[in-house]
């Protein structure tokens, strides 16, 4: 069965590029820009990997990550956090909250594909 990635990203051109490179590598990709709605969807229909932007309108990626780690259903879900903020404090906070991988923008497409593949496991 095709593995699924959910991309929570409010920049449509970035999420479109991520969607294309992952689809081309055999993934099923869903995209949403609505972080608040994503929290509910993640619990009812958890993806194999979540790609999560840090700065979203209305809610931060940290808040979503915190909610995921507090729910047994999504506690171990692999999360790749993408951010334009590469400050050490943000990285440390993401690690503290239980992020799986942390990647700063701009990123190399190959790095995103490799990270998703590694996080999803065999």
């Amino acid at each position, binding site marked *: 069965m095709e593995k699924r990635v959910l991309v929570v990203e409010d*920049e449509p051109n970035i999420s479109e590029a*991520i969607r294309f490179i992952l689809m*081309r590598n055999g993934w099923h990709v869903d995209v949403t820009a609505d972080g608040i709605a994503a929290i509910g969807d993640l619990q009812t229909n958890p993806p194999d990997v979540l790609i999560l932007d840090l700065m979203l309108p209305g809610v931060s990626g940290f808040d979503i990550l915190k909610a995921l780690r507090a729910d047994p259903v999504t506690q171990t879900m692999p999360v790749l956090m993408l951010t*334009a903020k590469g400050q050490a*404090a943000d990285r440390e906070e993401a690690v503290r909250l239980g992020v799986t991988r942390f990647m700063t923008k701009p990123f190399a497409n190959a790095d995103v594909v490799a990270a998703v593949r590694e996080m999803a496991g065999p």
Partner: protein
Amino acid sequence: MSKSSLTGTRIRARRNLRGLRQSDLAQMVGVSPSYMNLIEHNRRRVSPALLQAIAHALDVSEDALVEDSDIRFVEGARAAALRTDTDIVDLERVDEFTGRFPGWAKVLAETQARVETLERVVDQLNDRMTHDPYLGAALHEIISAVTSVQSTAAILNDGGDIAPEWQARFHKNILNDSKRLAEGAVALVNYLDAADDTESGLAAPQEEVEAWLARKGFHLAVLEAPDRAALPQLLRAQVELSSDASRVLALQWLVRLQEDARALPLDPFLDALAEQGMAPDLLAVRFNVPLQQVLRRLAMLPADDARASAFPVAGLVVCDGSGTLVLRRAVDGFPMPRFGGGCPLWPLYQALHSPGRPFRVPLRTDGRMGRQFVAYAICAPDTPPSFDYPPILQSTMLVVPEMPQAVPQGQPALVVGGSCRTCAQTDCPARREPSILVAFA
């Protein structure tokens, strides 16, 4: 004014450096305190015999009191020395150094001043990069556009089969993001260029007011006059205050500072300061005014009068009940953040939690080049009591460069910073975020 006519000023400065009260020095040389007061205000000539006695009491050469071995050079050389490893610098001989090599002392003092100015600029720029909401949003926008362009261009460049509709979509995305990137870059450059100008309308009203006051030396002659009606007229003529908001804010502060000047008239206040030394609490009692009024007055003294009284240029920070800094007067060596709150260890915030209780705390700024200060702080209601609102509090902190006589001996200095981001104190329990200084060390 001739060099010798400033002898009194130099005597006062040297006395303060020694931590002596005016009455102590008068007793040591056998004159009355009131006569010594006249001498220090350059209102009486000093006889050769008395000059010799004063020089002996102050442990300086007579030349140091009559020649223009400017006290600023002594202070500059001392500040430069404090930045280095004090074990290898003989601080006790700074007077001798300045007296023997006035030219080199001037170079050292000017270099020191330049270093401090540059450090302050770096501090402000870093603070701005971190906390300026416009800059943060602009950079985020540019990085997002760059990410999209790079990722999409890489897809098109990688080869392989790309359906025509995807290709068309990607080309369109690159075009749109390129435009967005160009516009964002231009807007950012314009913003940064404008910020370099004296005034641009882009600065917050508080920043405009503080910058304007700084250019006036935080004092206007009109403040010493009782005519409140003159203030709005004065402000209308200030092109540097570019918005109505900044003029309203400036008027609020000028009215308050004028009230301070009325309650603490300049000449009696300077005389009292000379007699009692750096004792804001005693000055408040003497003039029957709230302590915060004395702190503001000390920070806003006319520069020439302050210098003549050997009172150093002092910094001032005022915050409201939320901790938001509502007025800042910077002082060399004591960093103040442009955005966000200050160091949580500042006595300003201690006072905020204990309204009515005065704080006098020796401070040392963080880092190897830390400087010594004494902070005086008090928090008090800023409005009359009301059944309808909680108390509206305001906390005031005066930051005075080290005056040895101001603090009881043995009281240890509290190490503080300006903001966590630029503070290198690694084990601080109040740290809000990591320091860039430590991260890159």
